[in-house]
């Protein structure tokens, strides 16, 4: 399933400036996209557009075309979009239903709303809990989970819906390193199951290591897009107010002048690039 944006602009009701300005994107099935940008660059708005919350929930002026499998999202009911595009919110407290008392009931919440057969709900819940390594916690009270577990539960509740695309808006922003690793592992599991993933994230080192393609936003526009190395090597990236991965930044500070695709993103790559591989081996 593909999701395409063609010259899309959006202005929130009651505001004058465009949150998203003339954005064109083509999300290919099964790929992992990272989205970076400074605060106010339009990342969350882009997520809302991907998930159909714009224009179905959040009101404003939407120009251009957003199409899910060639069909404009404005013409698809939001509950149908919800079965095809999953959305993981920044804060799991916002994502979770607040009306369930068990982890497995929370995962089943959306499936029950959509009226799936009972057996299928049970099967999907079991699968989602296993994939997200929450099976042992299935009878726990959701709000007794740790931050990382809670965010994994949010991902599981989306995964259970079997969406083709999962959009995640800074899911690790409130997590410690352990929680962050858990969520990135969950994302890797999603990707392994063939789901298209769009991940908005500030932790560029982790993004660089995982995504197929990076989309850099600035003032509501796509400033650069491509492989992580190409985006981080781009001269315009430095003006976005977003950090590069530490090793990429170090290489550029040291005067890196090679092909963009050779930009080091890890210590090993950096040492190899500067000929310290033998030293490292010693």
């Amino acid at each position, binding site marked *: 399933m593909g999701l395409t944006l063609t010259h899309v602009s959006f202005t929130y009701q009651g505001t004058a400036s465009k949150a998203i300005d003339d954005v064109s994107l083509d999300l290919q099935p099964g790929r992992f996209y990272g989205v970076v940008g400074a605060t106010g660059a339009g990342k969350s708005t882009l997520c809302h557009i991907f998930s159909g*919350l714009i224009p179905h929930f959040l009101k404003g002026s939407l120009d251009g075309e957003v199409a899910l499998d060639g069909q404009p999202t404005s013409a698809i009911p939001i509950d149908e979009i919800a*079965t095809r595009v999953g*959305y993981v919110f920044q804060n799991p*407290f916002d994502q979770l239903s*607040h009306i369930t*008392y068990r982890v497995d009931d929370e995962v*089943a919440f959306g499936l029950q*709303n959509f009226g799936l057969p009972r057996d299928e709900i049970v099967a999907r819940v079991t699968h989602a809990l296993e994939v997200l390594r929450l099976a042992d916690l299935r*009878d*726990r009270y959701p709000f007794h989970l740790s931050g990382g577990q809670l965010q994994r539960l949010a991902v599981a509740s989306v995964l259970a819906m079997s969406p083709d695309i999962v959009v995640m808006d800074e899911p690790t922003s409130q997590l410690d390193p352990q929680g962050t690793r858990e969520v990135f592992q969950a994302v890797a599991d999603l990707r392994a199951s063939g789901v298209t993933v769009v991940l908005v994230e500030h932790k560029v080192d982790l993004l660089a290591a995982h995504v197929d393609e990076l989309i850099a936003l600035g003032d509501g526009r796509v400033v650069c897009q491509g492989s992580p190395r190409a985006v981080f090597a781009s001269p315009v990236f430095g003006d976005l107010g977003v950090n590069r991965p530490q090793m990429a930044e170090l290489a550029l500070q040291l005067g890196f002048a090679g092909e963009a695709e050779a930009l080091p993103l890890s210590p090993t790559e950096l040492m190899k690039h500067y000929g310290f591989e033998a030293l490292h081996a010693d």
Partner: protein
Amino acid sequence: MTVSGTSGTLFQAGASFVHAAHPTTKLLYAVVTIACSLVVTRLPFLAALALSVCVVLYLAGVWRAFLRATARYLVLLTFFLLVIQGLFREGPSAVLLQIGPASLKTAGVLFAASMVLRIFTMVGAFLVVVLTTHPADLVQAIEQAGASPRVGYLLLATLQLSPEMVERARRIIDAQRSRGLRTDGSLVMRFRGLVPLVGPLFYGSLMSVEAKAMALTARGFFTQRRKTWVRTLAHQPWEPAARIALGAVFVGVVVLRVLGWA
């Protein structure tokens, strides 16, 4: 899937016949009992109602939980009602107890007693439902009876939001303390410490409402499709008779009240 998660609720798991009853039957019991307590005015009838609630709480095995949840409030309420009504209720009445210039009047004490019994009955009947029914089952029953899912959501979310509110309040207090706010000491100091909490807590909660509404939308909560329930709520064989009996009791109480006997 079975319901066993009880954190964040008053629900007490158990195997009594009250626990086994369908939530709507228990709701009917609570409604009838509360209605009866409002209809009757005579003290013996109010006492009988309160006693019947005690019996149900005992048979359900949640008597201790009921006391833990309500005892301190009921004792305080009883004390204040007795003092205020006993000392200050207007009208001629025999003096029950004279303490210096203060006269504890019989009419006031009887009125306070009827108020206490009525409140006890209402709280007790409501808690029979809450203590013996898992909230998820209660809401499922309400929705299956035809109520809007939004009603069920409001009911459960009101109970469930507390963990988030507590966590949010804790973060705000920690932030305020780190900037020198004192939240310990005398009652006045503690009260002052709460003032800076109210604004951020209220505003922050309002801000999260939109995000929650978006999440519910994205999870199909507002869809018009027919919902599936993973759990099944069973009716016990004796419940139809119990419902009829409850209806008969209510009609009987109304008749007695009209005749001036209750």
